[in-house]
């Protein structure tokens, strides 16, 4: 089998992967990026609203306030050391992007433009803050292209349209690279590296109604599960309040940040009832639940009453054209309304995975092992939406994900350099390291009676019904039953198309295997957490239960086991932010 060797390997060409790759590419080490799509087609390109940092360009701001909001937004489940680290580094990380050429929108004084977003406050819970740095409503696009451009300048080696299959590890647990497949030729490839970073993004495609790109299938999570490593906090999925009804495409929170608001069928500004202070800019979980309740109680708009309206025509043509041009485009295309004239129909849509591969501040993947509950897996890193540091806790604040990508992408890149210095010699790869992975690939050459597309559709519907905004033990368990059935069907699935060249059917089958793992982790973790916190709403356990549940869940595939791990309430330098009731 073909083998390539590098010092460092990055799996994923989104914002997280490219930021880490850049750090390494600037050194003398050889770094490669593997991505299943050409890097600028990664999901980061879709991010609209912006990236948070307390630059105070518009209004007073301090990173401590940002930290407070993030802890509160995450319903105290976030690790406060990681949150402090992220909020402290935010400004320098954003300035760095500006120096790289990111075309931020500008204020009259020439500084980076900032807009208010949900969950942002001054003075630890006071008035609305203005913290989200934006390039119109195309911040993710601008960010991803800028990082890609920097990587070409620094001659990062790209493996575009290569699909990573599995991690390679030796008997001591060291990660030594991955097995991959060229999508264009169907040829398998071994990529050996002394250190590997997973930045494979989210898995929002496990739900029927999703704002996520079709490539968001949780491949990195599948790889980690198959390697016998755990996933953390997988019950926490953010449902974004405003996806275009029936389509799922996102209407950024920036719309509400610029002054847009939600209306039910009576034309009532209902968020005033649910969050008297922050109104439409309350935490995303709060707004999503409010919409779900309005719809459930018959106050939804439209013939079937299955959506609410978001109104922004009062902002005026000029603001919309300058600050929200992409949103206007999307609304006209997918909802058939011009938001400068009429409100856009919206409903909650699956958006972001707060959980993921557990890591520490340096992006090192950690797992319970001989010497403690959080031991780094040598050579293995994870950053971005696939990782769980955890800064987002039980609910992510808007604009914090892009920040997470670049702050921890940079930190992981730096730490990988240290790791390379400390481990100068490649370890030898066990002869059978790739065996299981290749067998998995070959399995799809066999015929079968079940169809992959049908199973995928059923899986997404199942998760939509059984792991949605509101959950109960019975509903979740029923979901798990159905998932068992689906797994049975998957075992009998086969492809009609067994060709080699650009066989996207095979890719979709491999993605489905990963999504199955994600679904199982989600359902099992959600059953175990008998409280409501952040985005995880249990109707049978409506209250937050700090006594029993101020802790992370760790799901492992062996025996569907869920372990607990303490939340780190102690920040690095400042005072701990003590849990209290979360009201907006």
């Amino acid at each position, binding site marked *: 089998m073909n083998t390539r060797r590098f010092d460092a390997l990055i799996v994923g060409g989104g914002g997280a992967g490219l930021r880490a790759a850049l750090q390494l590419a600037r050194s003398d080490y050889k770094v490669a990026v593997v991505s299943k*799509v050409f890097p600028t087609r990664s999901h980061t390109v879709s991010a609209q609203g912006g990236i948070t940092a307390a630059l105070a360009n518009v209004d007073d701001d301090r990173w401590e306030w940002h930290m407070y909001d993030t802890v509160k937004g995450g319903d105290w489940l976030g690790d406060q050391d990681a949150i402090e680290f992220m909020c402290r580094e935010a400004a320098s990380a954003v300035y760095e992007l500006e120096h*790289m050429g990111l*075309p931020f929108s500008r204020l009259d004084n020439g500084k980076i433009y900032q807009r208010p977003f949900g969950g942002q406050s001054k003075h630890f819970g006071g008035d609305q803050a203005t913290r989200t740095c934006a390039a119109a409503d195309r911040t993710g696009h601008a960010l991803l292209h800028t990082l890609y451009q920097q990587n070409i300048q620094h001659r990062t080696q790209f493996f575009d349209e290569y699909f990573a299959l599995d991690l390679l590890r030796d008997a001591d647990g060291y990660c030594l690279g991955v097995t991959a497949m060229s999508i264009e030729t169907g040829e398998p490839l071994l990529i050996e590296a002394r250190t590997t970073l997973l930045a494979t993004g989210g898995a929002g495609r496990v739900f029927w109604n999703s704002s996520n*790109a079709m490539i968001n299938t949780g491949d990195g999570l599948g790889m980690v599960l198959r390697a016998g490593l755990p996933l953390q906090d997988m019950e926490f999925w953010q449902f974004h309040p405003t996806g275009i009804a029936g389509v799922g495409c996102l209407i950024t929170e920036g719309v509400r940040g610029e002054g847009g608001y939600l209306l039910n069928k009576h034309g009532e500004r209902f968020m005033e009832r649910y969050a008297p202070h922050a109104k439409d800019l309350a935490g995303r979980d709060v707004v999503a639940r409010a919409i779900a309740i309005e719809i459930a109680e018959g106050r939804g708009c439209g013939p079937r009453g299955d959506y609410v309206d978001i109104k922004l025509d009062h902002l005026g043509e000029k603001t919309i054209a300058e600050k929200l041009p992409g949103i206007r485009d999307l609304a006209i295309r997918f909802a058939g309304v011009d938001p400068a004239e009429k409100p856009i129909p919206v409903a909650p849509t699956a958006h972001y995975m707060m959980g993921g591969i557990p890591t520490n501040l340096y992006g090192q993947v950690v797992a319970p092992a001989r010497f403690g509950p959080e031991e780094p897996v040598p050579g293995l890193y994870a950053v971005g939406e696939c990782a769980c540091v955890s800064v987002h806790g039980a609910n992510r604040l808007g604009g914090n994900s892009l920040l997470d990508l670049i702050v921890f992408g940079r930190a992981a890149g730096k730490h990988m350099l240290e790791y390379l210095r400390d481990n100068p010699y490649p370890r030898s790869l066990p002869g059978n390291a790739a065996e299981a992975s290749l067998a998995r690939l070959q399995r799809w050459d066999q015929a079968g009676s079940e169809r992959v597309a049908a199973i995928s559709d059923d899986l997404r519907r199942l998760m939509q019904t059984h792991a949605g905004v509101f959950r109960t033990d019975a509903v979740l368990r029923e979901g798990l039953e159905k998932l068992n059935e689906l797994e049975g069907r998957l075992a009998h699935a086969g492809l009609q198309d067994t060709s080699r060249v650009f066989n996207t059917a095979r890719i979709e089958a491999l993605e489905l295997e990963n999504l199955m793992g994600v679904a199982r982790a989600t359902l099992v973790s959600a059953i175990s957490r008998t409280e409501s916190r952040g985005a995880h709403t249990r109707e049978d356990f409506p209250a937050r239960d700090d006594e029993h549940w101020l802790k992370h869940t760790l799901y492992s595939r062996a025996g569907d086991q869920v372990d607990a791990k303490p939340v780190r309430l102690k920040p690095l330098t400042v005072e701990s932010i003590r849990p209290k009731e979360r009201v907006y």
Partner: protein
Amino acid sequence: MKFRLYRYSPESGEKPHMQDVELDIDPVGKMLLDALLAIKAQDETLSLRRSCREGVCGSDAVNVNGKNRLACITPLGELKEPIEVRPLPGLPVIRDLIVDMEPFYRQYRSIKPWLINDGPEPEVERLQSPEDRALLDGAYECILCACCTTACPSFWWNPDKFVGPAGLLQAYRFIADSRDEATSARLDNVEDPYRLYRCHGIMNCVDACPKGLNPTEAIGRIKSLLVKRRV
């Protein structure tokens, strides 16, 4: 609805051909990508690229009834039947609707698409007035879908030498950036009978761009900067 799809699989030994497909689908509110994926669900051998399904990633550019478009933002109802879908013209076909984009990417890389500013980095952002920032509008939004470049006859004839509309638009994006200091090197980079001057202002590119960008105008601006520099 009736479709005519370009099919080619290098392993089958068959020549490229057009396949007639009937699909039962209600076009209201649906995009061409929805239809292609529905066809793929019936016959999984049909291959195409797709990712964001909202017109921002640039994966699914195809030639529809003779025009280059993104399948995911092309309303089905707008299209005349039979809807003929082919891969982008002017690039080697790998399989079905998938082309080899490398010649396109190579031209993009050739214009050095990164900000060049060797000055000392300030501790905060480099300032840029909203007016200077506005010069980047209409250029930075490019999603590298190649609709424009593969609609340009000049690129068909000289794909290895002509930078093409997308590449030139990005060249302009950096020339226009008040923070970039390499304007004259960038002008040198494109001042060439082939790299720039193969453009004859045919404007196919403008017509093709699904993001409403105007490469011809940017090319015109580059030309006038070159003329200004000369006289």
